[in-house]
């Protein structure tokens, strides 16, 4: 039986195909291993959005503007968020360690007062938990998924943002940054 003659390789088509496919492959290869949610916050390097929020227990409103001159750590969290439980202890310990030097603030994201009360009773409370009724502050900070922690310098500029549960080492390094200490 006769065999069909072998086709010649069309170099033009091959080069054309490679010109299209290779840049795409390089683009995808460059993104491998990166967290697709870890989008750099546009807030970094800019003035932190102002807020004046009451504590969950109806206490006095805390204003970011009034804290000018002091580094601030703003953590968006909720009781229904498992990773928030994991980092709560780390943040509470750091708040005690840096008391007077750094102001820690927790902004509660989509949660209810009774649950917040129960959570803080169980896991301890080391810094104010503020109510963001209507979610305007979360929108201004571009919160996409909690926990998210913003590190604000004494001049009110957002120095960095950390997405996900923060661990002690990372927290220390970022606090050193807003305190103006180099590590």
């Amino acid at each position, binding site marked *: *039986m006769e065999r069909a003659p072998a086709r010649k390789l069309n170099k*033009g*088509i091959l080069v*054309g195909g490679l010109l*299209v496919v290779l840049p795409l492959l390089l683009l995808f290869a460059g993104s491998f291993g990166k967290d697709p949610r870890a*989008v*750099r*916050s*546009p*807030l970094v390097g800019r003035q932190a*959005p*102002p807020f004046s929020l009451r504590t*969950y227990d109806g206490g006095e409103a805390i204003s970011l503007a009034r804290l000018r001159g002091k580094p601030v750590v703003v953590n968006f969290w*909720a009781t229904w968020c498992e990773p928030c439980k994991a980092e709560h202890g780390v943040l509470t310990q750091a708040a005690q360690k840096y008391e007077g030097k750094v102001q820690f603030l927790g902004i*509660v*994201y*989509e*949660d*209810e*007062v*009774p649950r*917040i009360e129960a959570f803080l009773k169980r896991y301890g409370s080391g810094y104010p938990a503020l*109510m*963001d*009724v*209507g*979610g*305007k502050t*979360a*929108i*201004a*900070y*571009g*919160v*996409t*998924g909690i926990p998210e922690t913003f590190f604000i310098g004494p001049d009110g500029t957002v120095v960095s943002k950390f997405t996900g549960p923060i661990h002690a080492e990372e927290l220390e390094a970022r606090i050193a940054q807003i305190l103006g200490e180099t590590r």
Partner: protein
Amino acid sequence: MKRGTLQHYRRRRILRIVLAIVSALFLLLSLAARAEESCVAGEACAESRPLDREFVTSLVGPPRGQPLEGAALAQKTHEIALRLRCPTCQGSSVADSPSATALNMKREVEDLLSAGYAPDQIFDYFEAAYGQFVLLEPKAEGLNLLVWIGPGILLLLGAAILVVYLRHRPEEEEAEPSPAAFSASRTQLPDDEELARWVRKVREIAYGWPGGEPPREAS
């Protein structure tokens, strides 16, 4: 039954009805109070704070549009919400998502429109917080240009390849097979015995050749 006993039963019945009405009213009032109390942090509720116009203006400039209200406000809010990505959802717009974040964002759009901010200022405001990620239609600039012009380029490239291929197609491919070659292919059998047996069977069914053998041509 004695008259006194009857009156006693009537009184007790009236008392029960009054008690039921009072309890129902109390229950309704306590539910309403609870709904007022449980204004969820971050969720849209009646106690929402007013827009920080000073902050918004510092980002996008003073309002450049007309303050909207009523049906025009609702329609414009929906149009803008359709073009904003819900940041906590999987690829759905703020208009399509029932999540609390999307509802808050929709309310924010409404507040901005009623304050007179123009749609492009509203997109800029959300972009300032979330980055271009929040825009469902990315801006036609930088690498994003690939998304806008890439499909057109690929289409043109495909058309060019097709034209080149059709023009330079080898002649033997274009030529129709000759009747002799076609006839030979009908009568040839594969080398494999088993396969040849099946080919014969198929020929018998398809062509009606007895035993699958081609009829001998009359000389």
